[in-house]
């Protein structure tokens, strides 16, 4: 690497004849044939109805579903991360009651299916017809409302997704906090920082490197999981296309529409996650590997180099 800098030329590659991998060529050829066959069948099977896909992809009802999907993802991830930090900190509390409550929460939420939790939230009115905030054990009421008014399907969806996500984030945040060297906490304490200051200023920022990658996965997971809220009549992306095909009977193209949108946003999230991970990977002394874009440029430059040599 160092030699490439001096005169701006690529260094001469070792002029060895590379090993021929005939097996790789055979496997690659077989795969190419299979892929070509798949593409041919997908594009020529009229029952995929690609024209219908195009017709609905940007339709208003579908786009509304996309917006709902994004809203649900953002709000429930926000709730999940906040709750996750609180639960993780509670879990590490010296007070056994506090850590016990956190443990119980995670145990319960992770031990029951999200679909069931969502249904429970949507039927909460049957359990508690009135939702009230006031003095415990039946004291005076400060705020209250009918459960069916307070807990709309949207609120039930947020509660179901967010509270569920909180349990998973709690484990992720806890792993992150545990990854921070004990010495960092000790030196913060010996400088007179309080426990809260130490957590906020010293521990959490360093825990980020461990917390961020799985959080990206969780976001992708939640984005896809929003499709479950169709069972409690929230018009997310999946429910939007279901409503359309219940009238038009074009199930396949409409489910493809949904898949396209899910793929678009999971792809965007994956790319974002890749760069955020790189960002938090700094500060470790190791040099970062090149991004795909940088690698692509490198490849092009190398191919040009080969072409130039062969031309000469």
């Amino acid at each position, binding site marked *: 690497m160092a030699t490439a800098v001096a005169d701006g030329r690529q260094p001469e590659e070792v002029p060895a004849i590379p090993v021929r991998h005939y097996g790789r060529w055979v496997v690659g050829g077989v795969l190419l044939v299979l892929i070509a066959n798949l593409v041919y069948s997908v594009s020529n099977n009229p029952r995929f109805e690609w024209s219908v896909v195009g017709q609905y992809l940007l339709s208003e009802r579908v786009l509304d579903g996309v917006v709902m999907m994004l809203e649900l993802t953002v709000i429930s991830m926000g709730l999940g991360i906040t709750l996750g930090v609180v639960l993780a900190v509670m879990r590490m509390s010296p007070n056994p009651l506090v850590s016990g409550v956190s443990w119980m929460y995670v145990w319960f939420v992770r031990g029951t299916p999200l679909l069931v939790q969502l249904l429970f939230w949507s039927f909460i009115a049957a359990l508690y017809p009135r939702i009230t905030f006031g003095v415990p054990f039946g004291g005076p009421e400060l705020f209250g409302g009918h459960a069916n008014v307070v807990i709309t399907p949207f609120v039930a969806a947020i509660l179901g997704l967010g509270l569920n996500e909180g349990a998973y984030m709690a484990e992720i945040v806890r792993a992150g906090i545990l990854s921070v060297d004990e010495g960092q906490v000790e030196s913060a304490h010996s400088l*007179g920082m309080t426990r809260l200051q130490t957590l906020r200023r010293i521990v959490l920022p360093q825990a980020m490197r461990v917390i961020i990658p799985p959080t990206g996965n969780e976001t992708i997971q939640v984005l896809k999981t929003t499709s479950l809220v169709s069972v409690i009549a929230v018009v997310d992306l999946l429910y939007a296309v279901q409503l359309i095909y219940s009238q038009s009977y074009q199930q396949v193209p409409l489910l493809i529409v949904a898949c396209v949108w899910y793929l678009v946003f999971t792809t965007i999230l994956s790319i974002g996650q890749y760069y955020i991970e790189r960002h938090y990977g700094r*500060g470790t002394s190791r040099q970062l590997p090149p991004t795909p874009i940088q690698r692509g440029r490198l490849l092009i430059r190398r191919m040009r180099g080969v072409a130039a040599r062969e031309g000469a």
Partner: protein
Amino acid sequence: MTAVPMVRAEGVHKSFGPLEVLKGITLEVAAGEVMCLLGPSGSGKSTFLRCINHLEKINAGRLWVDGELVGYRESGDKIYELRDSEVARKRTEIGVVFQRFNLFSHMTALENVIEAPVRVKKVPRAQAVKEAHELLARVGLPEKAAAYPAQLSGGQQQRVAIARALAMRPKLMLFDEPTSALDPELVGDVLDAMRDLARQGMTMVVVTHEIGFAREVGDTLVFMDEGVVVETGHPRAVLANPRHDRTIAFLSKVL
């Protein structure tokens, strides 16, 4: 008694479960004194230092810093445990330098130094930055303010750690083997910074295996073994004429 000693320990005991690490430590460190603690591995030197700023709670005995009980408050004939925030405030008066530096790895050298003054003492940031530059210059690293710990050598990290501790203007500095994680050629710079500090009258308790430093800079040398103080005296006297067998045995190994 003329002046209040900076540190006073009376029969300090500390156990971890069934393991009794400190078995009654009694000693005094006068203001401005440099005390060097010497002793074999596992003798409880680090534990004693950690007790002084209440990173460990003592099980029995009494420990005072600048005339005030460590971790407790005396009122009449009762002793109350201090709240976390009160313990934290007292710790601001004691600087600690650890064997493994423990710089905040996500912050630059400068940010490491200003963190506690700004967050804990609420010093205006501009003033803290100015003082931090002066401190970094004082430990010989004026050009490293923007470097992250991973970009510094061990000796440089340790000097930043000293600057960070000094930024709180402590009245007592505790050093726990500050040079034993360093390559030999980097030890000198750190010892120079400490020598400087001693010359300016800082009260210091230094756990070290640097016999040369103890001899030259120390006012007192304390030899500890198995949780008790075996021998105390002027460094040159103890090093030249150790009186106890255990001291003799230990010194014959390190000298």
